[in-house]
């Protein structure tokens, strides 16, 4: 700060949008606790999400053409101060996260009332908002250490949220515990990696880091930092052999949380990976290219098949979806490993499309839980007739999960195949298509259970209320909408990919 | 078949009413007058064949006769019993009574 008084131009609310993006949900969380009212908790959470969504949309519109917005917290200039930095890539993620939150919350009202003990509701929504603002913060910040802080905010609240599934199934506690251990290890590795980078460069600001790493080149410290960050983030995004926490966490969390996390948490982790591999480091480094192609890619391919096969044989709908998520993350990693603009576009579009698809499916799971208590195939058989709307949404989003033309899932797989072919890696393209066939099998199993098997004679299931159906259908229709209107998502993703690669080229 | 018999009965000349023969004679007279009328005015023809006297009388006479013959032949070839396509074809069903309002005038 300068010692003499400088004339100050007042910032408008519009300038504050990047800050408000985080601040609104973050402030709402203690507000819910402070108010302590069970009735007010949900409206406050929902209002905060809606405001976030509006802000993220405004930000996305500002940066979609390749612009960058920066915000300096406390007025301290980077690299000293913390900087929020928004370009097309993270604006896209911000929009996805807040949109999913706005869709999931109305659904959560009924679902959470059913699955979580009533006295925990205020704290539940506070934790939810913290998780939400943590995820948003990870995406928005331009400071490497700040990423870690927000990652921890979201992770800690996630452990709480998963554990709150204990009212339905006690195993949620061990699942949350496992995730806590793994998540903490991941965060530790991540912060160790950042420590290495700080050691080598003396800065924490991402743009500055990129600059200095770019000029001084790679050395052992930077390389070790890269490896630690990669593994730390890999844990968070359930990168194949480190995915073991995910099936239990998703299966035993309350359904609304499964829907929210499946659609956002791993996606944000993918974003962090993108940010570090392309902005902080760059594919110009030989070590990065080799790591991606010889470590990440084989595991991504393995995930696509092994996790899909496990999903095929599962007998619990929710668990099947969890394994399918692991397989789908394989597609995104594969897109990143292509290291081309098309590949990156595929990864980013799939991040979005898979987000909405999984949101729809996990919400439908919540609907089945509400009516059938469990989601094993022999609990939900015959629901195609008893819960026609929910089941129809499952079919639609199931088609999107497979990647049937006309659905969102098709668009991203199509771009991914194109990316692989562009590089001449046609065996990879073939593998992508082949693993999609496995998706056909596991989705078909669900459809068969829902529609072709008779309902259990003691089943009294009826269609769920509108407050759940509408969010499910919004997500399901989004699967179709973004399958037909491919322009919006592809433009944003291309712009994001170009931004990421463009920065890398400096 | 019963229905063939009713048809035969209905279309037998003696059952077509006493007016039928007279009507044909009347019709033939009208035709003759119209044929003759062709000579009584000037035609504005576009197609040469139209200028032939009574073209519009002869043309339908010939073509319609030919059509009747062709139709008879084709009828023999194309006719099938009503349940031909399926035993529950729509042709075998009576029109559902709830869509009707049968009222007899003589009761």
């Amino acid at each position, binding site marked *: 700060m300068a010692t003499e008084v400088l004339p100050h131009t007042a910032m408008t609310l519009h300038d504050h949008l990047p800050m408000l993006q985080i601040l609104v949900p973050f402030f709402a969380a203690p507000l819910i606790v402070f108010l302590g009212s069970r009735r007010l908790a949900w409206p406050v959470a929902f209002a905060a999400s809606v405001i976030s969504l509006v802000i993220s949309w405004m930000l996305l519109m500002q940066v979609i053409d390749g612009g960058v917005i920066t915000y300096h917290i406390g007025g301290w200039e980077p690299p000293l101060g913390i900087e929020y930095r928004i370009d097309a890539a993270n604006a896209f993620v911000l929009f996805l996260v807040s949109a999913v939150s706005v869709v999931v919350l109305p659904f959560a009202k009924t679902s959470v009332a059913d699955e979580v003990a009533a006295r925990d509701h205020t704290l539940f929504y506070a934790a939810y908002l913290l998780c939400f603002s943590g995820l948003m913060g990870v995406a928005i910040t331009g400071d490497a250490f700040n990423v870690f802080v927000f990652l921890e905010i979201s992770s800690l609240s996630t452990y709480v949220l998963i554990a709150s599934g204990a009212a339905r199934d006690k195993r949620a506690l061990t699942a949350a515990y*496992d995730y806590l251990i793994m998540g903490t290890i991941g965060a530790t590795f991540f912060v160790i990696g950042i420590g290495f980078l700080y050691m080598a460069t003396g800065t924490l600001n991402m743009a500055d880091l990129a600059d200095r790493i770019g000029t001084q080149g790679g050395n*052992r410290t930077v390389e070790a930092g890269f*490896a630690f960050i990669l*593994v730390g983030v890999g844990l968070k995004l359930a*990168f194949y*052999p*480190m995915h*073991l926490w995910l099936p239990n966490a998703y299966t035993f969390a309350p359904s609304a949380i499964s829907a929210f996390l499946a659609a956002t948490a791993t996606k944000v982790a993918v974003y962090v990976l993108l940010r570090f591999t392309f902005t902080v480091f760059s594919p110009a480094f030989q*070590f990065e290219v*080799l*790591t991606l192609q010889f*470590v990440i890619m084989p595991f991504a391919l393995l995930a696509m098949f*092994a996790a899909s096969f496990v999903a*095929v*044989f599962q007998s619990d709908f929710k668990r099947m979806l969890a394994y399918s998520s692991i397989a789908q993350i394989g597609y995104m990693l594969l897109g990143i490993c292509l290291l081309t603009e098309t590949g990156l576009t595929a990864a980013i579009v799939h991040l979005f499309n898979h987000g909405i698809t999984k949101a729809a499916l996990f919400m439908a799971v919540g609907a089945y839980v509400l009516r059938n208590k469990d989601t094993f195939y022999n609990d939900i058989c015959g629901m195609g007739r008893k819960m026609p709307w929910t089941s129809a949404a499952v079919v639609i989003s199931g088609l999107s999960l497979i990647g049937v033309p006309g659905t969102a899932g098709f668009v991203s797989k199509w771009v991914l195949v194109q990316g692989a072919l562009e590089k001449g890696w046609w065996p990879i393209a073939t593998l992508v298509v082949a693993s999609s066939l496995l998706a056909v099998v596991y989705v078909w199993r669900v459809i068969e259970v829902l529609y072709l098997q008779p309902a259990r004679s003691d089943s009294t299931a009826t269609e769920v209320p509108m407050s759940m159906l509408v969010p499910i259908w919004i997500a399901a229709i989004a699967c179709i909408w973004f399958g037909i209107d491919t322009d919006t998502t592809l433009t944003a993703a291309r712009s994001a990919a170009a931004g990421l690669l463009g920065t890398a080229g400096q | *078949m019963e229905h063939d018999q009713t048809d035969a009965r*209905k*279309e037998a*000349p003696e*059952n*077509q*009413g006493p007016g039928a*023969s007279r009507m*044909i004679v009347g019709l033939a007279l*009208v*035709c003759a007058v*119209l044929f003759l*009328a*062709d000579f009584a005015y000037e035609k*504005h023809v*576009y*197609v040469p064949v139209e200028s032939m006297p009574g073209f*519009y009388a002869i*043309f*339908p*006479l010939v073509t*319609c*006769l030919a*059509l*009747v013959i062709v*139709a*008879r032949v084709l009828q023999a070839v194309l*006719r*099938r019993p*009503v349940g*031909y396509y*399926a035993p*529950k*074809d*729509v*042709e075998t*069903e009576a*029109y*559902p009574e709830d*869509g009707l*309002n*049968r*009222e*007899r005038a*003589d009761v």
Partner: protein
Amino acid sequence: MFDVFPPVLVYLLGAVLLPLLPNAALRAGLSLLVPVIGGWLIWTLPEGNHAVVSLAGLDLTLIRNDKLASVFALIFSLAAFLSLLYAWHVRDRVQQTATLLYAGSAIGAVFAGDLISLFLFWEGTAIASVFLIWARGTEGAYHTGLRYLLIQVTSGVILLAGAALYWRETGSLAFEHMTLGSAATWLIFLAIGIKCGFPLLNNWLADAYPVATVTGTVILSAFTTKLAIYALARGFAGTELLIWIGVGMVLITVVQAMIENDLRRVLAYSLNNQLGFMVVGIGIGTELALNGAASHAVASVLYKAVLLMAVGAVLFRTGTAKASDLGGLYRTMPLTALFALVGSASIAAMPLFSGFVTKSLILSAAQHEHHYIAWAVLLFGSAAAVMHTAIRIPYAAFFGPDSGLRPHEAPAHMLLAMGLTAAFCVAIGVYPKALYALLPYAVDYKSYTTYHVVQQLQLVAFAALVFAVMMRAGLYPKSERSIVLDTDWVYRRLLPRVVGALSATMGAVWALVASAQERWLRGIILRLYRTHGPASRIALNWPTGSMVQWVAIVLGITLIVTFLS
């Protein structure tokens, strides 16, 4: 939202409101009000493009109003009003709603300025109309409806495919005049051709129309095919190929109409036959010919409606519309018989009736443009229409040999509807200028010349003479309880047989191969289940320590790869 109020919205609103009304008379009243308001809106609609909406990045023009569109929209409104009046007694909400949606979609399609909204309304007519067939409520009607729906929806899908290709080729979705040549235009042409009843694509028409309810057939006859005529006139006017297609339509339906027993099916063939006239007119493509096609469409809607209403009334009172079971009904249904005669006179193109002033436009156009073969076939078609429809329908139902049936006269609202429709037929015939004023192009044509009147009278009289003599001599094809095969035989009889035989053979071969492969496949799946199933090591719940072990392994590999490079 819109700069003008699209007439189709009136129908949609009506269709939404109607099922909510508890009282049947109220519903019928509302359904009559809708076409009146719609008609008024169309009458006052300004020319040009309006109500452009943006959908997923495409600009859809809901209203493109010119004289070609408005004449069709007006006759559709009139037909909707008359047939709804005829259907006053119907209490069934489904039929009433479907009728409004059907008419609304048809009007919407006529005003559609681009191929996408045309497609939407195109499918709208298909889906709404099938309920009029299903409303009959019998199993046979259900199957017929399915066949109808399949063909109609296929037409829509082909249209959509054509539209998509057209968009890729030209970058435009506007529904304007197009020239055959590319795959896109051929697909659009084919889609219209299906609805229009082109030869060999026409079998759905005679298959489905007679199956609908008493009132449903009247409603069906007005919209779908005339909409196709409009689309042809808009998109393919002057396409020479259409002349030959029209000729084919006239020829292929003539014999069927003569030997068919079901009078409503006779009228369906006859309708198809008349469509041939219009298609020829569009194929010729001069102003006179297009005027002829449009005006003949108007006249055809009306006289076909009155004939179907009359036959419908007979069905309504006797339970049958089979020529073999009817006859002599004029004794107790004199007014219905009279209106049927007016309709007959119109289709026969008797002077002072509507067909006379419209058909002659097309015939003259064919002469002017030297399409002599087409002209001769149309002339033959006119004469044949006298035999198979104009005389045969009244003869078989009302004047022929007495069947012994003594039904009551049709109910008052049916008589009113028939009377009004018949009055329109006469009004057009007596004062054609009113109709001519609505046509797309200025009309400079005199129908009432001595030559025209005499030649037409000759044509009708001699055709009638042939009918009378042949009938008297017992040479006219007999009306018997039977059905007559049409081209739908191919997919109703031949195809199922062939497929059945093929699948039996394939099945046998497959069973051989499958039994050999089954054990092999079973082995693979079993092995996969052992490695990936819920109880396998991959899917088990791992202890936390093992998870961490994997983290260590991955970190190790990554570090090694990073350092080695």
